[in-house]
């Protein structure tokens, strides 16, 4: 094998770690991914009734984005008896905007109007479920798992990105259970900086298109 080919092979096999994975380039797709402390990417998506919802609609409000897939066991647990059973609905009554976003591509697990309508009904979700079948919004936020959570402050700046809590499927990893989204919302409400602005998310992979 010649030297160039060897170099090419090295470049291919010495793969970048997950943290450095680039967003696939689609026409019009943003090149950089949302970062905590920076302006949250704009989006406009249809809800389950076909109504368009955009981030700009909620200027001046705290917004929570919940990456969603009704077929994912972590989502089923969280909405069934877990931490998302009431949190979204409760937060919306307290003036927070809560949006579920499903980036499952057409034909993939959790995709389609019917599955999402059934889940929203079953789990009594009072807030919109937005469909992002192209995955464009998911990629712009760097959403990799369900549930992957993002909190945007009233100035439109991303204040938290990461896991819902430290207890996948209710099993707290060392120490006491902590809900990072609840904590971030409390910090923002009190006018404090978010103490834990980013964590590592867990769960099913977002079912992006192949």
């Amino acid at each position, binding site marked *: 094998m010649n030297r160039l080919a*060897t*170099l090419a*092979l*090295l*470049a291919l*096999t*010495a*793969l*970048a*770690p*997950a*943290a*450095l*994975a*680039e*967003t*696939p380039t689609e026409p019009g797709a943003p090149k950089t991914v949302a970062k905590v402390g920076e302006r949250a990417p704009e989006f406009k998506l249809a809800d389950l009734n076909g109504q368009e919802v955009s981030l700009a609609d909620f200027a001046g409000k705290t917004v929570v984005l919940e990456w969603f897939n009704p*077929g*994912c*066991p*972590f989502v089923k647990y969280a909405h069934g008896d877990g931490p998302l059973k009431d949190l979204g609905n409760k937060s919306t009554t307290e003036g927070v905007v809560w949006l579920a976003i499903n*980036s499952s*591509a057409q034909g*993939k*697990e959790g995709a389609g109007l019917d599955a999402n309508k059934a889940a929203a009904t079953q789990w009594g979700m009072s807030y919109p479920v937005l469909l992002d079948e192209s*995955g464009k919004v*998911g*990629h712009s936020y760097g959403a*990799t*798992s369900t549930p992957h959570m993002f909190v945007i402050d009233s100035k439109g700046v991303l204040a938290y990105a990461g896991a819902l809590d430290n207890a*996948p*499927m209710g*099993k707290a990893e060392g120490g006491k259970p902590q809900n990072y989204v609840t904590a971030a919302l409390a910090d923002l409400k009190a006018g404090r900086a978010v*103490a*834990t*602005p*980013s964590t*590592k*998310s*867990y*769960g*099913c*992979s*977002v*079912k*992006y*298109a*192949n």
Partner: protein
Amino acid sequence: MTALLLLTALAAEPDGDQLVRVTAEAQPLQGAQPFWVALRYQVEPGWHIYWENPGQSGLKTDAAITAPPGWTVGPLVYPTPERFDLPGGIVNYGYEGEVALLFQVTPPRGVKGRDAPQLGIETDWLVCREACLRGAATLALRVGIKRPGAPLSEALARLPVDLSSLPGATQGWQDRATWRATLPGVTAAQLFPSVDLESALAGLETSPDPRGLTISLSLDPAAIHPDADLRAVIRLEGPSVPEGVRVALPPPPGGSTPHDGGP
């Protein structure tokens, strides 16, 4: 016909408990000497389970071990993982096929044959293909003296070895944001960072070296907590190199920056 129906039912509704079969095996007990126990996971073809850092989604395969008083149980150790590239650029770290996770048990001093303990093992996993399913198993393993135990040499051989055991290897901080290792005899390397290392990682470069390969990690010092667990496993390729090496990075020179990055 019944069997066929049953198979169809299983195919339609896969179960996370059935996609992975777990068995436990221990090295023979020899007085108070520490011995290894292997948990073997046989994963259904096409599916994978996870390393201690699962990557951008997933969940680590975990096990809680209970032993009688006086018997101490070490941490779960993981063999060199593989990388799985999922649609949308999502990267997972884990295992397919058969994999053994191991832990070491140290008997109390003056242990007698009749003291041979029963270990309680509760393990759980996330198993994914396109979809993901949760699974769990509870096992009881009696560790005996007279019964011939499995030596577990194959499972132990799959654990990453310390980088310093690679002849001629060097490693260290170049400055407070760059850590570098030279890997003699290595033609390709793949980094598997711990969760804390991954969160501080800003760049990764490998370049050929006259003797092998150099791997350079750029880290964001502000993202390194004072008690950060900066570890990695590096999967190696080369004519006569181990499957993987493990590294534990000491805190960067000058320490972390307490003003930016939280607790």
